[in-house]
């Protein structure tokens, strides 16, 4: 089946646009951030569309107020701004308040990781997984292609509670053209082979495939898991999957060792006493101002396919299989 690559946001916004025609309780709020599909929402559903301007703090509070009045709210802005500019509004007006007043607010952040390549570190987003998953009642979702992003709409509109969707700003090749992932699992197993398994989220799933190809050239096969739901994934199924391996490699387009996907897996593996070693691949070296393509920047900060392949090979050499040592 041929599926044309699309922007994640267009796939999601199209679903929202369509649903708004039959569901009068959906309200769309943006902080002066657009897209061609958004123009259709604005034109066809003007009564349930508001642009608050460049004002993310107000975006969140307005969203909370609308949700308190019974609307299912989608709030839309650039990822670092809709998470970090207004983090206290998110904490107080969405996370805290929804414990007492269940409400449906979905934050759509566009521009995960290095998506806004040339705009530099203000527009790049390497902290949001850490921050958003620190809010205990938030759902955090990080799709790797537009098919998954579009599917998340059902979850958003059906389930009460605050949610954060971390979308890439670039058009990425479709991963799930043949078969959609199971939302209820929260992750999808792409390859189940070898003794090493890469667990990636968002854009890094694409990198994981590139790394797997390079490793194959060195005679190494790896498993690949797409963890697209960072909060509601099936604990039992993921434990069973990870237990098959000797080494787990976490891959995220966020700072390494700062509470993101790596911390999630450390905690999960430790809590479940899964007998594996863990290699964390994430952004190293803090904030940087170098220019380049996304691929070039990724190699510089330690998350590009070449550097990750080297690190996995080095890790395999320097740390012989833990399970084999035990036996």
């Amino acid at each position, binding site marked *: 089946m041929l599926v044309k690559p699309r922007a994640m946001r267009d796939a999601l916004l199209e679903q929202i646009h369509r649903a708004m025609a039959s569901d009068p309780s959906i*309200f769309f709020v943006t902080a002066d951030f657009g897209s061609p599909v958004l123009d259709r929402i604005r034109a066809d559903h003007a*009564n*349930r569309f*508001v642009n*608050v*301007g460049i*004002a993310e*703090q*107000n975006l*969140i*509070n*307005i*969203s*909370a*107020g*609308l*949700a*308190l*009045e*019974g*609307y299912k709210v989608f709030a839309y802005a650039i990822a670092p701004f809709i998470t970090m500019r207004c983090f*206290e*509004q998110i904490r*107080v*007006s969405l996370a*805290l*308040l929804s414990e*007492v*007043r269940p409400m449906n607010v979905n934050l759509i952040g566009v521009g995960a990781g290095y998506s806004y390549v040339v705009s530099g570190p203000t527009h790049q987003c390497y902290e949001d997984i850490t921050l958003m998953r620190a809010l205990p009642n938030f759902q955090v979702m990080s799709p790797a292609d537009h098919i998954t992003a579009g599917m998340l709409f059902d979850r958003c509109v059906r389930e009460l509670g605050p949610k954060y969707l971390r979308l890439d700003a670039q058009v990425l090749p479709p991963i799930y053209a043949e078969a959609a992932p199971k939302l209820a699992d929260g992750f999808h197993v792409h390859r189940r082979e070898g003794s090493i398994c890469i667990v990636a989220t968002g854009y890094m799933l694409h990198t994981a495939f590139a790394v797997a190809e390079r490793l194959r050239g060195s005679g190494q096969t790896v498993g690949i898991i797409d963890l697209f739901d960072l909060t509601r994934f099936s604990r039992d199924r993921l434990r069973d999957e990870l237990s098959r391996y000797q080494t787990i490699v976490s891959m995220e387009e966020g700072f390494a060792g700062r509470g993101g996907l790596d911390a999630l897996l450390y905690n999960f593996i430790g809590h479940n006493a899964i007998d594996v070693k863990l290699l964390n691949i994430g952004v190293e070296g803090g904030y940087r101002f170098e220019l380049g393509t996304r691929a070039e920047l990724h190699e510089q900060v330690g998350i590009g396919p070449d550097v990750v392949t080297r690190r996995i090979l080095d890790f395999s050499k320097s740390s012989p299989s833990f399970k084999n040592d035990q036996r």
Partner: protein
Amino acid sequence: MISNSVNLQEKAHWVWRETLEIHRRAPETRIASSLSPIEIFVALYYGGVLRIDPTNPRWIERDRCVISKGHGSICMYPILADLGFFPAEELQRVCKAGGILGGIPDPIIPGYETINGSLGHGLGVASGMALGLKRNGGRQSVFVVSGDGELHEGANWEAIMFASQHKLDNLHLIVDNNSISMLGFTDDIVSHDGLAKRLEAFGWQCVDVDGHNVLDLQSQLLNLKADLNGRPKALIARTLKGRGVPGLENEALAHILMPKADLLDSLLDADDAR
């Protein structure tokens, strides 16, 4: 519905007294900022301004009152208990385990709409409610009671611009303008001088009143509520922080000063003899 015949001045005095009693039992509460807005709340809740049903706090047709003053609305506890939102026995266990009335009111308290405590969120959330009601064709009004100090928070001004842009004439901001934040007079920190004029420049309709004249507050609020003129409304209530407590009233550090128990006792005794 709330009777309009209640003597509002007497009610305000009763709330002042009850608020002191609560503070005497629970000295952890902040008292000064809870004494300045008493007449505002009495006018709203007993003056026929708010359409509410204490037996059904989430009644869909109710007017929404978003209280944003953080520590400074302990005086709402006796009011809500008196109106029947919760049993009066709760007033005996403010800040105690098992109670619902904390040092900062939370939305677990029947009658409270939103989270309150971190300052400067109330107006934005209320603006979203007002927009939602308007777009839904609802006729309910939204009131926000804010301190003047919390207007330092920039998110308020995002909401102030938003509300006039969207002609939210069902939105009413009441500022308890006691002119003092935690560390002193706002004029010495970041001044709100000419607040009504500033808000008018942002497209709001404003009135500036004596915030301890409960009858004037009542009539101004009723007028503002009835006037659906396409503009959000602000009532700037000039008030005194720590009102009626010697050593606290209009003192720069009133927010963090704690009146001694014997002072409270003598004030309450004098009041008994009144």
